[in-house]
């Protein structure tokens, strides 16, 4: 910064000197031009003066051209020639100024001479000095004063009377005359110096002004460049924006078309979704119903077995023996004691009756037991049907539901299949959590997951088959995972497992997991799957929000 200031100051000093020299040069040139004109005028004036005052010299009645005419023409021309030539060809140069000063002083001498030494004509000297001061160069005054001093000195030496009017004159009289010139010179010197200072001050101000202007110009240039670049950048941005706007417009129109198409597609999809949901619900219900029917069918098998057993036992009842014994007694009602005592068959009657009663008692116990089983199976059927009826009539209703109850119900629905295939169900419920949800959809999901797990473990040759149900409660949600050690899911199928129609199970229709995932979404939850690959089992995790418990 300091170096910049120094450089700036040096530059300003250089510029100041340059301006000062330039101004001096201008002044000198202008003054040269004025003196060139003055030289011509003085030449003309000298000739006129000679023509008027001393045109001819006379001897008696004869005359000839006066020497002043020749002097005015030739000597005056010679005196004026060099200053005029220099003023034209070397304007502003020091040699011109000094030649002008020399010539002007010679013109003073000539005009004084032509005027006959009139006192008034001596004013030309002082006027010329003042005029020479226009150069604002005191050295020019020095030259002019020296010319006067030398002229007077030489005249005083050789022709004292021509200057001083007396033949015998003091040798220092020329000093007096020169002193008057110096008297004027003092003021003119002061004026020159003062004007020089003023000129330099003006140049300094102009330098400062130029410097300021230059700085402003630089700033303006920089700012202009910045604005130009900004403008160009803005224009390019504008152009790009315009292009993008056009693209955007085209994209908008395309997007509008796409949106319209998408809207139509969404409407169609929504309708389809509705149909899917309905189908899912129906499928779920069918799934549940299938399970119910399956369980009912199983129970009915037991009922059938029990009934058959009862029928078979009824067919093999000892009542016929009892009837035959009763007929024998009727035959021997007259001689009953004899028969009982003497006849061999009569004697076996008590043992027969004892055995028969024992048989009948045993049969009765078996029948009661079978009837109890039958009653239990029928109760089971009633419970299954009752549960089915319960889930079938409360779709879309949210209510507080205990997860453990849902798991119990789901397992009851799938119980027979699980038991039949010897699948171990392990429940690792951490907390007995109650959430507010649509329990039918959750049950549908759980039944589906348990069913899938059952199929997955059935598909393996693993002897120990298990399904682990885990409930984990979080602050905002509940996580229910169904883990099996079944056949597992290849990694490439994980992404498609919830897609509609995707299934790896023979006889599967690819609908259960898709509907389960949709149901989870409808419950504002999620359903995810993870598996380490084939034969590594799989874990389905259902995450459900706790929901707001209302009217619990």
């Amino acid at each position, binding site marked *: 910064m300091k170096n910049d200031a120094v450089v700036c100051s040096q530059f300003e000093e250089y510029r100041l000197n340059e301006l000062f020299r330039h101004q001096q040069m201008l002044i000198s040139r202008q003054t040269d031009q004025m003196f060139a004109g003055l030289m011509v005028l003085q030449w003309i004036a000298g000739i006129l003066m000679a023509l008027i*005052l*001393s*045109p*001819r*010299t*006379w*001897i*008696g*009645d*004869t*005359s000839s051209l*006066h*020497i*002043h005419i020749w*002097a005015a023409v*030739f*000597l005056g021309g*010679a*005196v004026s*020639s*060099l200053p005029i030539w220099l003023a034209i060809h070397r304007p502003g140069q020091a*040699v011109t100024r000094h*030649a002008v000063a*020399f*010539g002007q002083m*010679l013109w003073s*001498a*000539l005009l004084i*001479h032509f005027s*006959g*030494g*009139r*006192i008034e004509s001596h004013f030309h000297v002082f006027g010329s000095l003042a005029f020479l001061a226009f150069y604002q160069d005191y050295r020019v005054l020095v030259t002019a004063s020296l010319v006067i001093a030398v*002229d007077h000195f030489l*005249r005083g030496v050789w*022709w004292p*009377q*021509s200057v*001083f*009017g*007396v*033949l*015998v004159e003091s040798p220092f009289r020329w000093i007096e005359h020169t002193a008057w010139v110096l008297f004027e010179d003092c003021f003119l010197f002061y004026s020159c110096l003062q004007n020089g200072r003023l000129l330099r001050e003006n140049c300094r101000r102009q330098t400062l002004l130029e410097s300021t202007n230059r700085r402003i110009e630089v700033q303006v240039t920089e700012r202009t460049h910045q604005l130009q670049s900004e403008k160009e950048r803005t224009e390019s941005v504008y152009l790009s924006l315009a292009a993008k706007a056009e693209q955007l417009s085209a994209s908008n129109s395309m997007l509008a078309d796409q949106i319209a198409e998408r809207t139509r597609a969404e409407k169609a999809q929504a309708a389809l979704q509705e149909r899917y949901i309905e189908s899912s619900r129906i499928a779920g219900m069918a799934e549940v119903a299938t399970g119910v029917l399956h369980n009912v069918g199983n129970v009915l098998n037991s009922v059938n077995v029990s009934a058959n057993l009862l029928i078979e036992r009824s067919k093999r009842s000892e009542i016929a023996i009892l009837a035959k014994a009763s007929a024998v007694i009727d035959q021997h009602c007259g001689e009953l004691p004899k028969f009982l005592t003497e006849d061999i068959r009569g004697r076996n009657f008590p043992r027969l009756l004892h055995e028969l009663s024992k048989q009948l008692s045993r049969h009765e116990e078996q029948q009661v037991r079978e009837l109890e089983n039958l009653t239990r199976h029928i109760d089971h059927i009633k419970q299954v049907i009752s549960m089915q009826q319960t889930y079938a009539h409360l779709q879309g209703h949210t209510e507080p539901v205990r997860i453990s109850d849902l798991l119990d119900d789901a397992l009851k629905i799938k119980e027979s299949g699980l038991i039949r295939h010897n699948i171990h169900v392990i429940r690792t419920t951490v907390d007995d959590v109650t959430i507010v949800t649509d329990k039918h959809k959750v049950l549908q999901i759980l039944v589906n997951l348990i069913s899938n797990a059952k199929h997955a473990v059935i598909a393996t040759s693993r002897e120990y088959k298990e399904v682990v149900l885990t409930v984990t409660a979080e602050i905002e949600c509940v996580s229910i995972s169904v883990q099996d050690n079944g056949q597992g899911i290849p990694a490439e199928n994980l992404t498609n497992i919830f897609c509609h129609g995707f299934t790896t199970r023979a006889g599967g229709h690819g609908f259960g997991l898709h509907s389960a995932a949709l149901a989870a979404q409808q419950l504002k939850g999620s359903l995810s799957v993870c598996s380490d690959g084939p034969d590594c089992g799989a874990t389905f995790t259902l995450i459900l929000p706790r929901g707001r418990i209302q009217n619990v």
Partner: protein
Amino acid sequence: MRTCLSEVAKRRLAVVAGAIWLTVCTCGVAALVRYSRLTGDTGAALCEFPTDLQVQNSDKRFSLLMFVHPHCPCSHASLEELMRIHARAQQDLAIEIVFYHPANKSSAWAMTSLWRTAQAIPDVRISFDSDGRTAGRFGAKTSGHVVLYNSDGRLIFNGGITPSRGHEGGNRGTTSVLEHIRSRDKTREICPVFGCPLQAQAVPTDASICGAVR
């Protein structure tokens, strides 16, 4: 290289031209000054004022005669000096300006600006000198020649009253005339005369050599 030489040559030429110019101008002015210092023929004036001549206002104690060529440009300065003398000593001085007039010329020939200037000087007698006879009688041969006689008719000043040819201003002649009038000094003073010759050929003169006597 050629350019440098040319510049040097130009510079030398300029110096030579400047020197020539200085020389010409200086020599010209010197020649002009020298010309102005060329004195005319002072001649030998009459030592005694001729008794047959009557000067206007002869009751004055001094009589001054100036002989002037009416066309001499140098004599303007002489008249100017004469006017100064007149201004300072007119109560003691009877002045007559004698204008040369060729006999073959009309009087208008002599009525020049010099004559009109002389006419403007009060109490000065102006006369025409046909063919310069009076001038010749007094020994005046150059325009501007002044002779001064005291009341006794004795010549006390003879010569010019200008410092040089056509130049007015302080000079020994004017100073001498005024001192003679003021101090009544009877010593005779002779000063150079600067002006045009009154005649081409000298006329017969009665003047005797009357040099400076102190």
